[in-house]
């Protein structure tokens, strides 16, 4: 099982009832489930009707989800964006900056990283945002 973590801390999954479908099986209204090798450029159709996109990370330390998330946002995806997998509280700031709304964390990792740690993450302006007004 997983724990959803947003900027508000540990929260319930508002999309718990949605069906998760891979791009090739996608039906409008379902959540779009992507892996670390997803090509955001090839998903325009699915993205236009997906209320939620979940990106499962490729494993601890695999950073492709950061670029995939940033690209989805750049392409204009306005729905809910979620990263799923073994993530650290130390990566939270960067995930939010890349356009993610929340993460789905394995329970075992949520136990070792209690809610207070996530709520303490500072979201001050970063160098990139300051340089590029972005």
């Amino acid at each position, binding site marked *: 099982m997983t724990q959803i973590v947003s900027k508000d801390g540990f929260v319930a999954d508002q999309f718990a009832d949605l069906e998760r479908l891979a791009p090739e099986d996608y039906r409008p209204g379902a959540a779009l489930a992507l892996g670390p090798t997803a090509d955001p450029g090839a998903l325009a159709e699915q993205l236009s009707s997906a209320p939620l996109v979940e990106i499962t990370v490729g494993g601890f*330390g*695999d950073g492709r989800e950061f670029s995939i998330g940033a690209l989805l946002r750049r392409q204009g995806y306005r729905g809910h964006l979620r990263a799923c997998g073994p993530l650290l509280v130390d990566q939270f*700031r960067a*995930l939010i900056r890349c356009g993610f709304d929340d993460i789905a964390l394995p329970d075992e990792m949520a136990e070792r990283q209690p809610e207070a740690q996530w709520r303490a993450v500072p979201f001050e302006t*970063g160098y990139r945002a300051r*340089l*590029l007004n972005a």
Partner: protein
Amino acid sequence: MYSYTEFDRDFLRARVDEFRGQVARRLDGSLTEDEFKPLRLMNGLYLQLHAYMLRVAIPYGTLRSAQMRKLAEISERWDRGYGHFTTRQNIQFNWPRLTDVPDMLDALSEVGMHAIQTSGNCIRNVTADHFAGAAPGEAEDPRITAELVRQWSTDHPEFAYLPRKFKVAVTALEQDRAVIRFHDIGLRVKSRDGEIGYEVVIGGGLGRTPMIGKVVREWLPKRDLLAYLEAILRVYNLSGRRDNKYKARIKILVHETGLDELRERIEAEFATGARLLGDVNPDVIAQIEQSFVDPEFRDDPVAPFAPSPAFQAFLDTNLSAHKRADHAIVTVSTKPIGGTPGDVTADQMRVLADLAEIYGYDELRISHEQNVILPHVHRNDLAKVYEALRAAGLATANVGLVSDIIACPGLDYCALATARSIPVAQQISEMFADIDAQHDIGPLKIKISGCINACGHHHVGHIGILGLDRAGVENYQLTLGGDGTEDAAVGDRTGPGFAYDEVVPAVGRLIHAYLEAREDKHESFLHTYRRVSLAPFKAALYGERDAAAA
């Protein structure tokens, strides 16, 4: 010089607090060692053979005297009274305790320094020509670009977990002292019709598979720099190999994909990205440019002086031309005969800081050749600077000569090492203890790595030495003719390697063979090698060994 703004200071304080928290979470078990590892690496903390090692960033190798003094203080308070300057213009402390590291970072932050992104699979501390801003002929001080890249790459949200480490170097001259052709990205600042821009090189690297970088863009206007870098990094982050750490650098992506196809992908990504990305904040740019204006150079007329022979020898090797005729660039060798290349004691750091303050407009540089540089010294002050260096054991007149050796830490410190490198450097230097003989041999770059990772840049040494492990015994491979400059070349293997006690005499034979083969004193080792190639050197190396074995 760039002075930290309130923004930079707040950022640093937040990062030190964050790391303090990470250490606490590691100690209380919230973080496993596997999880802690990338976090400590991103804060410059390695686990070495005997202890932790803290690698402190010196962005583009530029330091103020107050910063050098702080490094001296840190080395005395939490380490063993010395620091080690590296081939990436950083400084390493070899003996910190994990629990002291947050305090060390606090002390560093007092002078606007840190250890962020000196390790880990992220964009590393950016390096630049160590004579930047002092050398004649630059289109613009390359540190303006380097500082911009530093800010952009620091804590970049997208690129902290790349397939592998990523290094950027900048120069502003045709004559390349920053080794840009052996970096993941090399930037050469140039001007065209009065506009500043870049030649962009990608996919260079040393390590297991040395590759010379390729030009991906002949001309990139300055305003497009960050958008173009983002395009390169994004393509790399998504397509770089993650299945094998030895194939994960961008050089392999360039090699396996082909430059043309990769360029197309980068350009496509750039075309969209640049359109959507805001212009770089002009206030930040103005503030950076302001930071690299010249100091107010003294213009006293240069008085003639009659140097002693020892001082003359120092002037011959350790002085370089400054963009002003009344000033000079002084390189301080960290390689006394028999010393450890790059090691500087706390007392020596203070002497260097004082000299910079009194005679050097408060500026110091660290070179990738592990030396310390006073970039602006009025010629009338050279004698006083020399005397002070001599008294501190820092006046070795060997810059660019056979004993100005680059050596990685090797088996003396490094957990990855397969052989010793420092003692090999020390013995070579002792073999040529006579400075006059060194001056006679002339320019010669020897570079030594203690394993295939090539931190000692052996591939680009005129003589490269790579220490390997052959069934539990150290074995040293020699390469000849490597060159890290604009004439980039990877050295050629000479043949079978040499045991630890054979390698120094083998280097001696190589140099002897050069002296025999050169046309005259003005033909350097490298030029001679290019003319005569391997044969006479092989004969000198193996002829003798085979004869001894027979």
